[in-house]
C-alpha cells in the first residue's frame, strides 16, 4: 500500500496581539492510501489548525507556516494558490468542516448547492450537473426527492449527508472530517459513521478524522495520533494506542472517557490545556503529568519509535 500523504515538520503559528500562537508545532506523519487516521485531543490542542495546514486553507493572521505536506509526491506548500484550487481542492482532497451542516446556503435548494460544484469546477451544463447531483444524493443514501428541498426542511443528519456528498462530488482521494458528527444525536451519529465506513470501502477513500472522543475514534481509525498543545504526543495503530497507551496524556484521556458498558472508574485530568502563545517549557504536558520528573521541565521529548508505526514523545520512553 502506498503512502498518499506525508507531513514533515508541519508548523503553523498564528499572529495575535499576545504573540505567536503555536497551534501546530512540528507535526510529522505518514498516511497510507485507503486508511483512516484519527487525530484526537482536547479543544484548543491544534487539531483543526492541523487540518487547515494540510489543506493550505489559512486565515490572514498566519505568523509562520512551514514544513512539508507531500500529497501524492507533491509538496503542497510549494504549489501556486491557483494550482491548489484547480487541481487539489475537491479533486484530490476535500474537507467536511466542523458544524458544516450550518454552512449550507439557506436560500438555495439542495439540488442547486450540490450541482454548483459540477458547473463551477467540472464545467458541466446545468442539466448534466442536476443528474450528477441526484447520483450523489443516492450515494449518501438520501432520497432523490430532496433535490428540490431547502436546508431548513432537512434534519441535522440529512444536512450532514448533503455536506458529505458535496465534499465527495469530484471524487477526492483524501477526505478530512473535522468533528463531522459533534452536533448530531447519538443514533444519527451512528448512522453517519456507518455511511462513512461504507463510502470508504466503496471508493478506497483515505480519511483524516478529527475528534475529541476516543470512543468515536475507535469506530473509524486504523491509526490514531494523540495531539496535545500543538504536538503529536503518541501515534500508532488504533488497537495498540487504545489498548496499550504509552503516553501519560493518552492514558489519562482514556481514563476520562466514559464507557457505557464497562465498570471502570471515571477519572479526570487536573488542570487545563496550556495557552499556546506561551506553552510550558520542556514537555508541554508536564504541568499536568502524574509522572513528571525534573528533566520534563527542561527537555523537550523527541518522538521515540517503539515498533513499526508506533511513536511516543515522552522522556519516560526515551532511551539514552
Amino acid at each position, binding site marked *: 500500500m502506498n503512502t498518499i500523504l506525508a507531513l514533515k515538520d508541519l508548523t503553523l503559528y498564528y499572529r495575535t496581539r499576545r504573540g505567536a500562537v503555536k497551534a501546530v508545532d512540528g507535526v510529522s506523519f505518514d498516511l497510507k492510501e485507503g486508511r483512516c487516521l484519527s487525530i484526537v485531543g*482536547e*479543544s484548543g490542542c491544534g487539531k483543526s489548525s492541523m487540518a487547515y495546514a494540510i489543506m493550505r486553507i489559512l486565515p490572514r493572521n498566519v505568523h509562520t507556516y512551514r514544513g512539508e505536506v507531500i500529497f501524492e509526491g507533491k509538496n503542497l506548500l510549494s504549489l501556486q494558490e491557483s494550482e491548489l484550487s484547480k487541481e487539489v481542492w475537491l479533486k484530490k482532497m476535500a474537507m467536511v468542516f466542523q458544524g458544516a451542516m450550518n454552512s449550507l446556503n439557506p436560500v438555495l435548494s439542495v439540488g442547486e448547492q450540490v450541482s454548483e460544484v459540477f458547473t463551477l469546477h467540472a464545467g458541466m451544463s446545468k442539466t448534466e450537473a442536476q443528474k450528477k447531483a441526484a447520483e450523489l444524493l443516492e450515494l449518501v443514501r438520501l432520497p432523490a426527492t430532496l433535490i428540490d428541498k431547502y436546508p431548513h426542511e432537512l*434534519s*441535522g*443528519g*440529512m444536512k450532514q449527508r448533503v455536506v458529505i456528498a458535496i465534499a465527495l462530488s469530484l471524487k477526492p482521494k483524501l477526505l478530512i472530517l473535522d468533528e463531522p458528527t459533534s452536533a448530531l*444525536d*447519538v*443514533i*444519527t*451519529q*451512528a*448512522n453517519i*459513521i*456507518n455511511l462513512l*465506513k*461504507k463510502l470508504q470501502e466503496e471508493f478506497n477513500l483515505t480519511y483524516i478524522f478529527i475528534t*475529541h*472522543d*476516543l*470512543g*468515536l*475514534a*475507535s*469506530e*473509524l*481509525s*486504523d491509526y490514531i495520533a494523540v495531539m496535545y498543545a500543538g504536538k503529536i504526543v503518541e501515534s500508532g495503530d*488504533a*488497537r495498540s494506542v*487504545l*489498548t496499550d497507551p504509552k503516553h501519560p496524556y493518552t492514558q*489519562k*484521556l*482514556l481514563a*476520562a*472517557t*466514559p*464507557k*457505557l*458498558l*464497562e465498570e471502570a472508574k*471515571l*477519572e*479526570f*485530568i*487536573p488542570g*487545563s*490545556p496550556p495557552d499556546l502563545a506561551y506553552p510550558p517549557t520542556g514537555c508541554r504536558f508536564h504541568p499536568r503529568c502524574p509522572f513528571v520528573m525534573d528533566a520534563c521541565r527542561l527537555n523537550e521529548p523527541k518522538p521515540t519509535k517503539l515498533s513499526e508505526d508506533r511513536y511516543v514523545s515522552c522522556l519516560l520512553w526515551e532511551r539514552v
Partner: protein
Amino acid sequence: MSTNRLVEVRDVRTWFEVSRGLLGKPLYVRAVDGVSLDIGRGESAAVVGESGSGKTTLGKTILRLYKPKSGEIYYNGRRIDNLEEEELKWYRREAQIIYQDPFGSLNPFFTVERILSEPLTIHNIAKDYREIKQVINQALIDVKLEPPEMFASKHPHMLSGGQRQRVAIARALVLKPKLIVADEPVSMLDASVRVEIMSLLETLQKKYETSILYITHDLATIKYFSQTLYIMYAGKIIESGATKDVLKEPLHPYTQALVSAIPDPNPENRLKYRDVPAGEPPSPMAPPSGCRFHPRCPHFIAGKCDVLEPQLTKSKNNYVACHLYS
C-alpha cells in the same frame, strides 16, 4: 404523600401554540405530552433523550419556567403547577437551574461577584454587604475557584469554559436550593473537564443534600452520576428504572438503539457496522399514532403499535412503554 419524594410530576403536558389553522383551531407543539416522574430527596435522576425529545421543556416545566397545559406537579407535597408567578417566589428560592452554555448563561457585563450576589439580593437573604461577601466566598471555595477574592472580581470572558460552568454552579448553590435542574451541564466542555465538573456537582449535592435532575443526551457520562434514568422520546417517557438495570438490560427498542449507538473506545468497533434504526425522531406537532417510535421500530407489530398507545408498565426491573412487554 410519602416523605422521601421531593417532586412528583403527574401526567404533565406542556404544549406550545404555534399557529391557528384555517378554522381557528390551534396547532400545538407537544413538547411534553403526558409525563409522570418522581424525584427523591437527595436523589440524582436523569432525563435522557435526543434533541427535540422534550427533555429541556420537561425540566423547565418542573421548575415552573413554563406552565403546563394539564397535569399536576407537587413540590414537597404542595401543588405548584397551577400557581401564578407572584405565588412562586418561595419556589424560585428552592429550585434552581444550571444551563448548558456557560458562555451564554452569565451576563458578560457583570463581575463574578455581582453574578453571585444577585440571587441573594433578590431574595433578601443577606442583611449586609459583609454577609453577602461571606456567602459568595464560601460558594467560590465550594466550586474550587480559589482564591475566591481573585475570581470574584473577574468578568466571565476572563474565565475558561470549565471555570464559567463553576460560576454557574456557584450561582445555583448560593440560595441553598433543595432542587437543581442541570440542563446538559457539561456538554459544551472537554471530556477531561466534564468528569471534573460532574464530580464537583456530585460532591456538592451530597454536602447540601440537594436533589438533582440532569437533562442530557449523553448516556455514557450520566451513568456515573445518576441513580435513576428516564428515557424520553417524542414528549414521552418510554422507559425508566435504576441506571444499572436500564443499561444492563434495556427493554424498549429505542433504549436498546441508544445503548448500541454509543461507542466505547474499543478497537473492535472498526470492524463492524452499528445496528441502529434509520430515520429521525418525529415532528412534535404531529406525533405518530400509537407508539411514537413505531415508524422506526425493528419490532413493529402492524395493527397494534400504530394504533394503541403503550402505557408505562413494570417489566422485569424497569418500567417500559412498549407492546412487546404488555
